[in-house]
């Protein structure tokens, strides 16, 4: 298993409940260069499922999720954002359909 580079950008979403962590990730991704790395620190239980789900919906890569050392209940997710959105997304059950 390879470990992801440590991103220089860290979004600290500790203490913020869903959907705040995903929103913060999405806002950051909007202005980011394709291929950029970002880490999200969160204690939101929904983020465990939602950050990977957002990555799938927005063509980003969920590289890693691990416990943050010395911070019980806090997880660090590392994401690599994808190319700019062009409005086309894969169709299929459970996958959002964009207009």
């Amino acid at each position, binding site marked *: 298993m390879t470990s992801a580079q440590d991103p220089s950008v860290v979004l600290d979403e500790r203490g913020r*409940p*869903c*959907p705040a962590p*995903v*929103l913060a990730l*999405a*806002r950051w*991704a*909007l202005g980011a260069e394709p291929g950029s790395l970002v880490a999200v620190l969160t204690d*939101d*239980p*929904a983020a*465990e*499922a*939602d950050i*990977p*789900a*957002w990555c*799938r*919906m927005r063509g980003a890569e969920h590289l890693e*999720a691990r416990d943050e050392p010395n911070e019980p209940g806090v997880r660090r997710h590392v994401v690599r954002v994808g190319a700019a959105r062009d409005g086309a997304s894969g169709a299929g*059950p*459970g*996958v*959002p*359909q*964009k*207009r």
Partner: protein
Amino acid sequence: MALLQAARTAVAEVLGCRGDEVWFCSSGQEAARLATHGARAFPASEVGVVAGAVERMDILDAISPGIELPPRSASPWIGPDHLVLLPVDSVGRIDPEDLVEVLETRPASPVVIQQANSEVGTIQPVERIAAICADYGVPWIMDAVGPLGYMPVAGGWSVLIADGRPVGAPPIGVLAVRSGSAWVWPESAPTIPGCAPGFSDVPSAVALATALHAHHGHLAATEQHLRDLSERLRSGVVESVPDVAVHGDSVTRLPQAVTFSCLYVDAEAVVRALDQFAIQVGSGSACAARSGQPSHVLAAMGALTHGNVRVSLPVECPDAWVDRLLDVLPGEVAALRAEAGVQGL
């Protein structure tokens, strides 16, 4: 008592078993407890239990009290109390080959897999599960809460769990155990035929049997009506709400369950907004749950959990209810997203 025995017979007809195999108990939770503990108590059984990751929490909790479920995994997960969880795919379905893989190493383990998932509706591969359990000679404990009253209950199970809530009956539990199953009463034996130990509410048992029998009489029509309605709801949501994920298998599913998640929307806010239009819905999102945890079913599927709206259409759902929801939902979601400033995200 004749009424009680008639109630057993009526329920047995719906479940596809014999009257003397049907037992009433105090609640669905108690039925789950008796089912799982009884299988474990059978002398030749493995101490372990194999269950699907998307079983109802009542059932997982009966097997392993206070269980903390792991993050989504592609392989079987070995948890406390000798519970092995089978993973599910993105629509919430278990892979029968995973069941075989686990039983190869734990051949006498009772198996706990639902006929269908009540949240997302996905029907499990019941024929394969029945065949595999028969091959290994292990009891299949099947949760029938999802299909009961809405579609035919599957066959091939050894032990069945149900309760009265889906058919508007008293919320007492039903436990059915086919004779010859690797199952025993986990504590004391019953003293009244048809009543689990500690249960004596015969009027509720009769009420449940009556309601089930009535529903069974027009099951095919109910199923068709709700399938059409839920199909209209599923496709309507996809067509009218951007960035929405409708969960579960779109075809092989329960007729009444529809659940979808709206990206970037706070679930509590959308549930409240719909409530203002007298549209009551549930939610599987963390913020809407007393526990603060998102639906373990959605999490196990890798599905988006925030902004989740959960609908379970009642047996006699008027078409107008779905029309109203489809009318109101897009505007409310758009308003919430505008408020949160998510354009372009």
